[in-house]
């Protein structure tokens, strides 16, 4: 018998996002979760205990709700906001959802959707067939806000306008599709560039959080369709990195002061055929001291954090229908059966 029945276990304290991603050592056959804080406290608690077994749909869960005072448990089944097992090297695919408008003209990049599905803040989505805004069709964005079944916001793109000075698009999109996707975690990754400022230390904005590090050298592909073609094939060192809830950017040791303004091509030009402006990981350079271009970090050295790496994981994604309380301690156990019978 191999010791494979319990492959992972532990506890965590939930936060206000009511979401959690737990790394696992393998795909479990059964995953069990219990709210230790609420268990038996005589207060009503939805999903005080919940579980998932191999074969259940992504986002599904079977749960037990706790009744007030009596503590009596009642069974429930949820189809969303439950458990989703993710192998980031072979991630699940998601259905496309329709959009009726994207406010690129206003520069806010709010995507109107009658159904937002299970898209959550922090998820990556891919847009396509964005009528009127084809310059971002095929692009990948990270979601910064969700109003359920109304809209999602592509805040990192919006910050390229508000913080980076990107010119707004000529028109809003009037139709299109949004597809959630989970990126492979090979590191480092190329990124779509949403804006490059013309400055003595250029700031490059991205469409979602970046994982570049100070001292890393990035290489850029910027065609004339994006204006600042002087940046094409430039290899520049990263001085500092910003990854806030709405802004993703790096500041470069590269002077773009006299360069042509970075601008997205029009929808019509994009439809006729362009290659996107991208940043590509290149190599390691000297790590700077707090964003300084000339003073190296002490002790002096080159970046090791940007080493090419395989960071893929097995993850159990927990949604808001199984994590129903913030600041609660949850216990979990992941089982893998030596023999899995399905009769």
């Amino acid at each position, binding site marked *: 018998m191999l010791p494979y029945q319990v492959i992972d276990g532990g506890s965590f304290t939930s936060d206000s996002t009511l979401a959690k991603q737990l790394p696992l050592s393998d795909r479990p056959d059964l995953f069990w979760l219990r709210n230790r804080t609420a268990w038996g406290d005589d207060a009503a608690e939805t999903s005080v205990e919940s579980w998932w077994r191999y074969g259940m749909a992504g986002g599904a869960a079977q749960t037990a709700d706790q009744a007030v005072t009596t503590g009596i448990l009642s069974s429930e089944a949820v189809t969303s906001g439950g458990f989703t097992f993710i192998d980031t090297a072979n991630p699940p695919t998601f259905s496309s959802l329709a959009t009726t408008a994207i406010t690129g003209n206003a520069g806010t990049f709010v995507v109107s959707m009658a159904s937002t599905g299970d898209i959550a803040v922090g998820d990556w989505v891919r847009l*396509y067939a964005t009528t009127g805004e084809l310059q971002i069709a095929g692009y990948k964005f990270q979601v910064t806000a969700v109003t359920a079944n109304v809209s999602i916001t592509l805040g990192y793109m919006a910050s390229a306008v508000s913080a980076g000075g990107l010119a707004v698009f000529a028109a809003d999109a009037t139709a299109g599709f949004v597809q959630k996707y989970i990126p492979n975690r090979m590191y480092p990754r190329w990124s779509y560039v949403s804006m490059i400022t013309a400055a003595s230390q250029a700031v490059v904005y991205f469409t979602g959080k970046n994982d570049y590090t100070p001292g890393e050298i990035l290489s850029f592909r910027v065609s004339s369709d994006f204006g600042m073609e002087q940046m094409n094939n430039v290899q520049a060192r990263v001085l500092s990195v910003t990854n806030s809830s709405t802004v993703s950017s790096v500041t470069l040791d590269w002077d773009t002061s006299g360069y042509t303004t970075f601008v997205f091509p029009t929808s019509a030009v994009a*439809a006729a055929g362009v290659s996107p402006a991208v940043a590509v990981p290149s190599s390691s350079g000297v790590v700077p001291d707090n964003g300084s271009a000339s003073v190296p970090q002490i002790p002096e050295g080159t970046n090791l954090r940007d080493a*090419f790496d*395989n960071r893929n994981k097995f993850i159990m994604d927990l949604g808001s229908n199984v994590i129903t309380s913030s600041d609660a301690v949850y216990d979990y156990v992941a089982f893998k059966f030596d023999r899995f019978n399905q009769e």
Partner: protein
Amino acid sequence: MSVNINNMPPQIQQNYTQKLLSTPERNCIHNLFASVIEVQDNDGFINRQSRYDALETFEVPLDNAQMNPPSQLLSRVDIDCRVRNYATYVVLTKQVTMTNQDPILNSAAARLGQAYKETSDILQRDNLESSASVVNCVGGSNGDLPTEMALSDLDDIVAVLQNNDGDYITNMIDASDNIGTSPLGDAYTMMCTSRMIPVLNNITGFRRKFEYGTGSINTLSSEWGGVNNVRVFQSSQGSVSVDASLLGNDVANCFITAQEGYKIVFQAGGRAKYIYTPPGYMNDPAHLRHAAACNFYQGQCVNNDLWVQNLRSTGI
């Protein structure tokens, strides 16, 4: 009444042919053109290689004052690659190996070997997908972005790689006097999904490998053909980004590389191994099961971002 198998069935109703049927095996193409590095044991887990940037050329002569010109700054970049380890195994009960007609441990070893090679290939594929420069095909006519690949797209990539001073991987294939053959220039190599085959066959001037001047002698089964200065290798596990085009169609990521564009890193003591564990180990006091395992250490990375291009195509 005659004697037939209704009243006289054979005593043994089944026979077994020892020759096994083929297991589908994918073409492993993504490590074919990688430079290979082996790191020694007991020396950390991140491999570093360095590259010195070229100095500026100096065409202006010194004047008669014969003053020393300003010195140049010699600069260097480092390419770091972390090596990870991977493992999988098969557990067989002794009853299976004692009762099956086929020597099943042999098949387990073969399948573990296949799983290793395909995993190693997928790791490199995912690395290239993650970090190689992306260029959209725009020379096709299907109205999508990227379009389906066209000759002009491949020529553009050759121009990019030549402009970046990337060396070809294979030498020119000479012409011959065999009917239906043509020469092929010095070539970069392209790795793509088998779903690209119809697109490739439609590219103007594309030559299947049987049209090479030397015929298909000394070519791999994964090679499909070539055009101008690109030779194409395809695999069913080539890279595809699902629904990633302007119109939401699947996009083939076709990696075109020059020499030393990317690499694979092995650990000296962590080369792929087949490990057999007989009954009696692994908490098996009754000697009921044995195991066949495989493990290996590997890292992969792009050496020079200017020398590997991901030419994206639809039409698949």
